[in-house]
């Protein structure tokens, strides 16, 4: 069960008609370095030939409209004044409430775009534990932290499924789970992916979610996200989590379409509607939701 026809037919069953998309490049300002002066940085980049347009749903996000220079090779980028970060991928961190001073777990952190965003939104207060399994990816993450002057993060080479072994509890947990990806960000996606891959990834994601829930404080929040369009990795996993892990879905104020409550004929919990799904358009495909502990009875 693979191939473009197979997956496109699934998307149609889920209510979205496939069309090829052209992603727009996006950047995110690091306001802790830039002293919060977004307009000055917009003008500074404009003088280099980089025309930006504010992304309406992101506090620090901008579309790159026109560029005479590579956005990843300006002095301003190297100084850490901004990061290149896909627009939908900027959403998960914005869903946490009140990050300052909190202890945060970034369960699958590399290459570090969201870790830097967390540190930025925390104003480098509190602490972040960032995990990733790949040493090579941790090198990229570390360079990213150094470039953006992140000071509140500790990085471990650790599989997120082993996070309870650290013996720590966290107020906020980002599970940006390793996933199958989507065709919008990978031109060979349809050729390379099978349903078996998707199901294997979904199992790993459940294990990560389960372990993350073990590390969550009583009033903690988990934001779960993937850049997959496949419901096995998204709504079906969240439906599983809210029935097994003493978690419930929190309402979020976020763009995107509502989470699917009926997947291939299977009826899911009605609260799944509070999840958000980004079908590829200007952004890549993406899924996000926020989980909190069920109130104790």
């Amino acid at each position: 069960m693979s191939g473009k026809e197979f997956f496109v037919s699934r998307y149609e069953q889920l209510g979205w008609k496939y069309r090829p998309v052209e992603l727009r490049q996006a950047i995110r300002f690091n306001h802790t370095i830039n002293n919060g002066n977004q307009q000055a940085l917009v003008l500074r980049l404009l003088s280099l030939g980089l025309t930006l347009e504010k992304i309406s749903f992101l506090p620090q996000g901008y579309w790159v409209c026109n560029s005479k220079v590579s956005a990843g090779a300006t002095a301003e980028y190297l100084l850490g004044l901004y990061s290149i970060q896909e627009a939908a991928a900027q959403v998960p961190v914005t869903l946490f409430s009140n990050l300052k001073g909190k202890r945060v777990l970034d369960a699958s952190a590399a290459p570090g775009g969201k870790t830097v965003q967390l540190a930025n939104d925390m104003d480098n207060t509190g602490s972040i534990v960032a995990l990733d399994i790949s040493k090579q990816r941790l090198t990229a993450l570390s360079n990213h932290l150094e470039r953006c002057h992140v000071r509140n993060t500790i990085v471990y080479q650790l599989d997120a499924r082993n996070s309870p072994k650290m013996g720590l509890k966290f107020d906020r947990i980002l599970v940006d789970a390793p996933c199958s990806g989507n065709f919008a960000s990978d031109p060979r996606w349809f050729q390379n992916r099978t349903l078996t891959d998707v199901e294997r990834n979904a199992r790993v994601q459940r294990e990560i979610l389960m372990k993350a829930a073990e590390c969550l404080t009583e009033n903690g929040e988990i934001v779960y996200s993937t850049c997959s369009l496949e419901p096995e990795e998204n709504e079906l996993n969240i439906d599983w989590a809210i029935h097994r892990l003493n978690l419930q879905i929190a309402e979020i104020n976020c763009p995107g379409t509502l989470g699917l409550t009926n997947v291939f004929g299977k009826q899911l919990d009605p609260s799944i509607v509070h999840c958000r799904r980004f079908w590829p358009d200007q952004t890549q495909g993406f899924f996000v939701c926020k989980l909190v502990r069920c109130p104790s009875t």
Partner: protein
Amino acid sequence: MKIKAVVDFALQFGVKLTFNENLLVERDGRIFLLNNQIKPLLVKGDFFYAGIFLGKIRANKFFPSFNLLSIIATQKANKIIVDQKAGWLFICGRDIFKKGIVQTYGRIQRNCHVLIFNEFGECLGFGRVLTELTQQQPQTDKNMPAVANVLDIGDFLRRERKT
């Protein structure tokens, strides 16, 4: 050893740094400065990165991080401010010519180290002074390298290409 390497490096810029040694940790020759929030999270000895990366020691030589340069930059350090073109060429790994220098601060003598700033007051790296830069000696050739590039923020791009 680790604290001495960092302090000695800062002294080259005329800056005396002090650290709480209890908050300095070393991992594979890399030196990190923690804070009281992060220190309790050192639950495993084999962390990969922590707090503020200050630099690394390789073959008994200290290589500073850009975070350390930023810390030094907040003090009264020897520094020069360069114009946009000289700043860009510096980031590309080139030396600085005297004609690109807008202003100098501190004790700028031959062979001493200086931080390099752009006109926005941002630290681009550091270099070694090759020639006298004081106004008393204006005859220095404006088209000759005045500061040799030692480390610049273009290093992040070079690292990206490696990984």
